[in-house]
């Protein structure tokens, strides 16, 4: 019996990038996330959907320990990335967040130049030895984020002066600049118009080649468009997780059915 978990762990490591087991999150007395088990595949877009307050953003934030910043928040259970427990006391949350980047609902560029927005992370993490290496990181990050052509001639203009969609792609470029492996996105398009949204979605699809992406979205159409796997949360419980096409054409759980077809009253 004692050997079994080791074998399972070995299998999990080859199959999943992130592996969550019996995760509980409490805000003070409130039990916000209940017993969530999920395996997140590498180089895949996984969408978290569910009504407001279902815990999808809370759970997303456990994946790079953003909840550590909230005093009354307590996380139990195990979350492993590449088989390593990210809540182990030896893990440095700052290093973890470099590996697991995050993009938020509202674009939040630093009040700095476009160049410095991207260069900030690599500088503090010591990823560039000299100016030319830093220049390379900035240009390649902006290229990967599909923003290079639009900004290459105005890198010293403030990031806050760009359009909303450009700002969001700047934030994605900023996340990419520190060479993360996982990118978490918390409703990245909710403040964007349809064209900017389409550009971000196109970008997400391209990033999938190199990154594991987890996206929380209120738009089911968006989840259907960008993700390969979808997880449905309700009242802090992970109700159902599976291939996106199955969740949207033939969900197994009544609650998922009601939600995706617009029957929650």
């Amino acid at each position, binding site marked *: 019996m004692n050997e079994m978990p080791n074998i399972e762990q070995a299998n999990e490591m080859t199959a999943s990038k992130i592996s969550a087991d019996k995760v509980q999150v409490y805000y003070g007395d409130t039990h916000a996330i209940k017993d969530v088990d999920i395996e997140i595949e590498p180089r895949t877009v996984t969408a978290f959907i569910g009504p407001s307050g279902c815990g999808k953003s809370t759970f997303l934030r456990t994946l790079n320990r953003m909840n550590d910043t909230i005093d009354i928040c307590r996380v139990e259970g195990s979350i492993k990335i590449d088989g390593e427990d990210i809540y182990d006391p030896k893990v440095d949350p700052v290093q973890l967040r470099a590996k697991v980047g995050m993009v938020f609902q509202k674009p939040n560029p630093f009040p700095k130049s476009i160049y410095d927005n991207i260069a900030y992370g690599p500088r503090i993490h010591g990823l560039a030895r000299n100016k030319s290496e830093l220049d390379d990181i900035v240009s390649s990050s902006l290229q990967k984020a599909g923003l290079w052509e639009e900004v290459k001639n105005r890198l010293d203009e403030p990031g806050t002066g760009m359009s909303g969609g450009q700002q969001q792609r700047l934030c994605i470029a900023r996340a990419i600049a520190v060479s993360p492996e996982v990118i978490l996105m918390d409703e990245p398009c909710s403040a964007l118009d349809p064209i900017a949204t389409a550009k971000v979605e196109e970008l997400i699809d391209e990033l999938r080649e190199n990154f594991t992406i987890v996206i929380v979205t209120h738009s*089911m159409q968006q989840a*259907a468009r960008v993700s390969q796997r979808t997880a449905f949360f309700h009242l802090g419980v992970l109700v159902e997780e599976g291939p996106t096409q199955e969740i949207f054409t*033939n*969900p197994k759980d009544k609650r998922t*059915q*009601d939600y995706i*077809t*617009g*029957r929650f009253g």
Partner: protein
Amino acid sequence: MSEHTVRAFDEDLTAVAGKVAEMGGLAEKAFADAVSALVTGDTDLARATVKGDERLDTLYMEVEASVIELIARRQPMGQDLREVAAATRISNDLERVGDLAKNVAKRVLAIDSDLQSKKLAIGVEHMTELALNQLKTVLDAYTRKDAEAARRVQAADAEVDAIYTSIFRELLTYMMEDPRVITQCVHLLFCAKNIERIGDHATNIAENVYFMVTGERLPEDREKLDETSGAV
């Protein structure tokens, strides 16, 4: 299933299903009338059946337009998505059933005389009974969202095919015995083929109903009993 938060969505879905059901009723009637006209040589009924197909064509286009509009406006998911997909496919099958019935009715006008011998039509009548029953059952299964009934319809299609094979052989024998009945027999043979096709459309509908209700494909395990291709 409970109602949508947006009530107009329910109304749209119900309207589409209502149109498909209306098409079902019309297709059923056209089929029954066409065969009845064939057996009794009633050319008035045959003409009315040919004319009646127009309504079916109109409804078919209406279903298609409503489904496209519904997809554009509501982006249906899950069960709803399967329902609208089923509606387009089922209406397509029903429109074809109407065409096949119309073709039988046209042959009544082409024969333009009583069948020389009633016995020629007995097999066709029997086959019609079965195929019509299949069509009725599957349309019921559609409105009642009954996957099990749909599965039985699929399984029973083999019987229609088997009768078609035997009619084929029977008509062949008559034609060899008496060349004067060849024209009539060929028309009857086409009618039988049309009816067999109607049975196939009932099966298609059954498969779509099953998928609509369960989200799973109905395994295609039925035997093919139409052996006429081997008999020629």
